[in-house]
């Protein structure tokens, strides 16, 4: 195989999404052919849509990137020969609009290399912090204007101040890495790609607040993140970086066991204590009485990962980016109906349009809305996309910033079904303690099920609105307080979709199975019989007619038809047995 002699070093992105796209196989093949050229595994730069991504550093210092590298000999040969195929350049939209701060090192360094982290300014922040008095560190964070990145948006400096003021024999710092919001992967990327940056942030936090016991509560679904963090913690212990002001800090990773509600502070603490993850009433706040009754402070991954930068570069530098009320940059996990899904880091105050269209490459003509804040957030319609992304603007639309999940919803999606999906999630994730959340979300979900099944009545919409508001104000924790948001917001912006479901019994997007038929266009059909052979319920007759009485709307035929002659149509437009 031709291996270019210009190659100095090869980097392969092997974060979870890279692996899922086949990076492991590519890596293995590369290793077979590179000879003595260094290959490094690096984390995720965020260009998930281009995975597997391979960066080739040449002797003259330039970097040539290859996207979608196939795990074939030919594919690897193209990379090693610096071929023309699959060259990757960052799209202009992304290059211009993004501002990489917190993920500046992601994808550039080997996540488990302590040395590489240090070479790139790692632990300078900690060093600087240790040279300051703790209060000065807190002041710096306060000056930065950093607000909690987990969704709540509470000023981090203020929280640290509370914690530092507590007198106790032991104080606890917890990093909330239970990224439970389905559709968000910012924290995963950070932990997989720059675990040391998070740990540095935690150590600075511990120093500033006097915490001596450090937990990382990470969801078990992130095995690679846990692996990288464990390695990094071992390295920290080895370098004795965990000895701060003469005290040896304990850093423990605890794996969550799959419960969305454990993103809630008090539930998370219960879970850490080995109990059922049910939240409790606050006050007392965890900073007064948390893990095993010790003062406990909980910060999110992205919040903590920002800390080294703030300390290193100064709070003012951080605050120079962003808006009046929302400072710095924010990570978003872009996914859904767009061309370039992935992780993006943007300055606060950028508009939704810039994120979705310019960075994400979504086609404005095909986008209906964007869901921010996951199951706790809301769908913002495309006509509000000039809204700047900051905590307060999103709230004014009925949505929330949330942790940073951003799902682009195309015009072909049904908003009622989307709301049903979120309520399905939240009602099952409710811890089951409080009445409004346990039963209220269930009743709302049942109502949405009825509506999407074509059995809704106009009064259902009033019920959803009334119950939604009551669940919101009658719930103990954030889960219940925000669970109705997806319904209330879609009722506000997409009421006509609900109306057509309950009044005309039609789903305009042709998504709700009970409100659609499947039709085979006989004129275009080439009689290949693939649909007949593959239909699980024998709903396609020998003369190529789909019987909607039998059809279960599994879309198998639609997917399999080579000529795309089968498609969903409005209820009543398909054939039913016994009709002519």
């Amino acid at each position: 195989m031709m291996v270019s002699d210009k190659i100095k070093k090869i980097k392969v992105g092997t974060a979870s999404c890279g692996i899922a796209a086949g990076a492991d196989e590519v890596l293995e093949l590369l290793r077979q052919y590179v000879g003595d050229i260094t290959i490094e595994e690096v984390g995720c730069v965020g260009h998930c849509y281009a995975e597997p991504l391979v960066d080739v550093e040449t002797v003259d210092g330039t970097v040539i990137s290859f996207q979608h590298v196939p795990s074939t000999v030919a594919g690897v040969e193209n990379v090693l020969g610096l071929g023309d195929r699959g060259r990757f350049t960052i799209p202009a939209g992304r290059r211009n609009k993004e501002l990489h701060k917190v993920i500046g090192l992601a994808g550039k360094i080997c996540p488990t290399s302590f040395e590489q982290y240090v070479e790139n300014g790692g632990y300078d922040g900690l060093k600087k912090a240790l040279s300051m008095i703790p209060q000065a560190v807190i002041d710096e964070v306060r000056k930065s204007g950093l607000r909690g990145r987990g969704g709540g948006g509470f000023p981090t400096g203020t929280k640290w101040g509370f914690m530092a003021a507590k007198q106790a024999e032991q104080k606890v710092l917890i990093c909330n890495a239970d990224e439970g919001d389905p559709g968000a992967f910012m924290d995963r990327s950070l932990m997989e790609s720059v675990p040391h940056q998070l740990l540095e942030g935690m150590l600075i936090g511990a120093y500033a607040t006097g915490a001596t016991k450090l937990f990382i509560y990470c969801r078990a679904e992130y095995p690679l993140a846990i692996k990288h963090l464990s390695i990094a913690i071992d390295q920290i212990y080895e370098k004795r970086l965990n000895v701060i002001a003469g005290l040896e800090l304990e850093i423990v990773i605890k794996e969550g066991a799959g419960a969305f509600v454990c993103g809630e502070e008090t539930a998370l603490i219960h879970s850490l204590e080995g109990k059922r993850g049910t939240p409790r009433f606050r006050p007392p706040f965890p900073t007064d009485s948390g893990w095993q009754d010790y003062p406990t402070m909980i910060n999110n991954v992205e919040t903590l990962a920002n800390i080294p930068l703030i300390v290193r570069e100064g709070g003012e530098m951080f605050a120079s980016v962003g808006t009046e009320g929302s400072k710095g940059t924010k990570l978003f996990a872009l996914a859904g109906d767009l061309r370039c899904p992935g992780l993006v880091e943007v300055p606060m105050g950028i508009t939704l349009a810039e994120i979705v269209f310019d960075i994400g490459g979504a086609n404005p003509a095909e986008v209906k809305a964007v869901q921010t804040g996951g199951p706790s957030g809301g769908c913002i319609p495309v006509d509000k996309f000039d809204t700047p992304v900051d905590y307060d603007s999103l709230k004014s639309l009925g949505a929330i910033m949330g942790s940073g999940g951003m799902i682009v919803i195309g015009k072909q999606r049904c908003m009622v079904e989307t709301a049903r999906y979120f309520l399905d999630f939240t009602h099952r994730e409710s811890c089951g303690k409080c009445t409004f959340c346990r039963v209220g979300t269930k009743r709302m979900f049942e109502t949405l099920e009825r509506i999407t099944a074509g059995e809704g009545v106009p009064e259902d919409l009033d019920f959803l609105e009334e119950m939604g508001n009551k669940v919101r104000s009658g719930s103990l924790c954030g889960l219940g307080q925000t669970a109705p948001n997806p319904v209330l917001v879609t009722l506000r912006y997409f009421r006509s979709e609900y109306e057509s479901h309950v009044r005309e019994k039609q789903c305009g997007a042709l998504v709700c199975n009970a409100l659609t038929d499947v039709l085979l266009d006989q004129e275009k059909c080439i009689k290949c019989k693939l649909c007949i052979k593959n239909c699980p319920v024998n709903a396609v007759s020998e003369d190529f007619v789909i019987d909607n009485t039998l059809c279960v709307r599994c879309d198998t035929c639609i997917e399999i038809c080579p000529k795309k002659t089968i498609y969903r149509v409005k209820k009543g437009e398909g054939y039913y047995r016994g009709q002519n």
Partner: protein
Amino acid sequence: MEQTEYDYLKKIAPEPGNLIKGLQAIQAREGYVSDDDIRAAATYFSLAEVEVEGVLSFYAQFKRNPPGKYRICVCDGTACHIKGSALILDWVSTELGIKAGETDAKKLFSLETVACLGCCSLAPVMSINGKVFGNLDRKATVKILKEHRKK
């Protein structure tokens, strides 16, 4: 309780706060948590059996029945959902003849849905024994299953 059988738990400090960790260790070995495991964990962590059961049943991660050789998790995160994860589940279900939450008779496959695998940009995705497969359509899904069946 066979004292030797649960020796591996001894790596974990026997305090109640480590219960979840202990259960995770048990499940990592056996793929599920049996009644006997619950009794052993209760003894080891000095908890009542019913407390252990209460904690265990709260968390989605813990399984009470032995899984199949290949544990298939169809992701139903938001991104996957809007990209048609319900259909993926349908296809897998039809192909294997089992519903979500079930294991087939030969104990080869077990099927479940999960909230999010964090690979939203590759939606829709599913994982088999932790390995993630992305950008699924019907053809790819069926092909992956067939390959695993052959193995």
